[in-house]
């Protein structure tokens, strides 16, 4: 067992060795530019991309012509939202999203507001799911896009995608989903789910960093997005730039592996996740965040009340996890996702996201339980708040004096 134990698979996943093996020849002998039309180096590269495109499409039940390769999910999110805003501006300028979306979606929407977009940011229920009635009420004639993520990166909940897409379509809007955390982990089918556009990325499913995709529906309806990067007309004019051939090959391989092994991985990981959760919720005043029924199999987000967040991370240095304040890295802001669920700043700070992955072992989970328990207990022993809580003082009723 390697220390620190890596339980941050929602941030990024280690590459599957089989993916790396598939990529290597495209760095060495098969190094051609896929846009070179006149020689074998180009054709070999193009063929490899076609093959990968098929594998990527197959994973999500799409046609290979519907896959646009990008440099990653952030670029895909940007392309989808800005691309729809520009392409459908004659139809309207209203976008509906939700406060717990990834920054790549929220920051893009904020940028578009400066350019004249009207954006509705739906709140979420305390379990992280959006209120479908509220979504329906928010739809207007000017609504061009509903952007709701498939699975949440911090708490792992899965939104009711099919119902959301139905509502969007009923009102003539397109439905875009950030599928980064869900694709490759649970079955995602763009037809059954009624998805018009979807962003996803390789490095969250044991593929390489620096490559992602955007699914853009071609039939019922035929969706188009305005290119955000021009120059060469690659990817059917929607995304230019020399294709990252080894990266795309790796992405294709990662998709193929996920398609074949997803069910087994999910089954194994949900057992481990449940073990982790039950092992940690025996601690007093610990709470699992987010809906426990509709969620990804490999994520557990747990708050430990009366524990100081940064201290907890320090005390758990043998575990690589994310805290409720770490998601935007250097900043010490409490997670806006957890706050969106209604958690207080303190509780958000004292939350830990455990992200299990294909290479997580039971031994590692046992270690994580033991480490976390020790850390929480230790910090509580030092905490005056915990002492007061144990003495039966209702901390919420105390009015703290200003310093």
């Amino acid at each position, binding site marked *: 067992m390697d220390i620190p134990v890596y339980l941050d698979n929602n941030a990024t996943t280690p590459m599957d060795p089989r993916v790396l093996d598939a990529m290597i020849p495209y760095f060495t002998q098969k*190094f051609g530019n896929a846009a070179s039309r*006149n020689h074998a180096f180009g054709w070999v590269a193009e063929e490899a991309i076609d093959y990968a495109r098929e594998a990527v499409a197959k994973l999500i039940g799409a046609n290979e012509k519907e896959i646009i390769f990008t440099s990653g999910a952030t670029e895909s999110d940007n392309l989808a939202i800005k691309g729809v805003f520009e392409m459908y501006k004659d139809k309207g300028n209203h976008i509906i999203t939700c406060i717990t979306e990834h920054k790549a979606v929220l920051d893009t929407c904020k940028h578009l507001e400066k350019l004249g977009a009207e954006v509705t940011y739906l709140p979420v229920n305390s379990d992280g799911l959006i209120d479908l009635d509220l979504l329906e009420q928010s739809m207007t004639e000017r609504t061009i896009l509903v952007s709701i993520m498939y699975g949440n990166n911090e708490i792992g909940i899965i939104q009711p995608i099919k119902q959301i897409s139905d509502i969007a379509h009923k009102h003539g809007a397109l439905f875009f989903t950030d599928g980064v955390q869900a694709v490759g982990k649970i079955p995602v089918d763009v037809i059954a789910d009624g998805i018009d556009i979807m962003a996803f990325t390789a490095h969250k499913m044991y593929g390489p960093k620096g490559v992602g995709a955007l699914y853009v529906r071609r039939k019922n309806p035929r969706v188009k997005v305005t290119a955000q990067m021009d120059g060469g007309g690659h990817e059917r004019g929607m995304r230019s730039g020399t294709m990252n051939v080894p990266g795309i090959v790796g992405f294709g391989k990662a998709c193929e592996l996920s398609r074949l092994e997803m069910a087994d991985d999910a089954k194994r990981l949900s057992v481990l996740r449940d073990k982790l959760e039950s092992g940690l919720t025996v601690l007093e005043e610990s709470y699992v965040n987010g809906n426990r029924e509709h969620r990804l199999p490999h994520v557990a987000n747990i708050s430990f009340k009366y524990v100081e967040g940064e201290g907890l991370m320090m005390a758990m240095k043998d575990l690589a996890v994310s805290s409720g304040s770490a998601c935007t890295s250097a900043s010490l802001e409490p997670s806006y996702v957890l706050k969106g669920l209604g958690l207080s700043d303190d509780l958000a700070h004292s939350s830990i996201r455990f992200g299990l992955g294909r290479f997580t072992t039971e031994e590692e989970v046992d270690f994580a339980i033991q480490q976390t328990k020790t850390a929480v207990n230790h910090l509580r022993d030092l905490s005056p708040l915990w002492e007061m809580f144990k003495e039966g003082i209702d901390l919420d009723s105390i009015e703290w004096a200003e310093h």
Partner: protein
Amino acid sequence: MRVYLDNAATTPIDKEVLQAMYEVMETRFGNPSSIHSHGRESRALLEKARKTISTILKVSPSEIFFTSGGTEADNMAIRSGIIDHQIKHVITSELEHHAVLHPLQAMERERVIRISYVKSDSKGNINFDHLVSLLQANERSFISLMHANNEIATITDIQRIGDLAEQYNALFHCDSVQTMGHFPIDVKHIKVHFLTCSAHKLHGPKGIGFLYINHNVKISPMIFGGAQERNMRGGTENLYGIVGLAKAFEIAYRNMDIDRVYILELKSFMIQELRKVIPTAVFHGETSPENSLYTVLNVSFPPVEIADMLLFNLDIAGISASGGSACSSGSNIGSHVLRAIGADPERPAIRFSFSKFNTKAEILYTVERLKELFYSR
């Protein structure tokens, strides 16, 4: 024999580069934004790579922004540079790469800007008098002119453009994708605001590049969503790509003089042999060592019947070259660059582009096959 003479389209990766990347791919997978040790190790590699590049270019690390490649870097400089500085007039050339022309033309269609195309001669040299008059006639311009042309090799005096840009308070973006790592660019003394680099043109990996932004210029991001690249480019960093880029940069500068002499010799040899074998062949663009890329030679062949199938026949003979730029996927339209310099459309043109991995024997082999194609019918 298999001969790759399309190095302006993409170059084979250097073994040393792959080795550096492989190590990272195998062992360093943390997200550089994560605060645990896996993340911190990745972050350290990322910043070390930035330092390597900025030290070589003699710029500040804070002036280097990693992107997914040259196209993104060009788009970012152009779109954000123009919009953020509220510039309405752009000076460019018809000889620019599509990664420059297409975003500019898209902005022109959206009526954000007007474009003036600076005149150039039949060898692709821009007309400086015209450039000056364009700068004088407009309030403030954004200049986008490439350092060296990817199809016809002609080099532009960017020092002189930079001086003019300063004199007329213009912003100067230079697509330096073909020269980064091939020529020492004296960023300190060239008054350029934006330079672009694509790793796979200098024996690095595909999918990674950077934009240099002079610290006196502030622009906003093009891709939003995350604090990466000091809030200038959202998205999890392509760590192995970045490590590979830095390594490729290091090697390119370490061996630049040796490589240049070696490759220049290959090019001169090809010119000399072609003149001997096919005297009616002429060369597009500049060919002198001072005024052209030593990596690119664009040859215009006599308009004989066989010429239509020239590239195809070369490919059968195991030689990979390109007709015009390879960077336009799926399109069979002729080269916009050759059109702009008034090249004879009846004469087939082939771009041969060289790297340090080519040999004289390969050049000789190529010239021999060309000779056969033209004379042994």
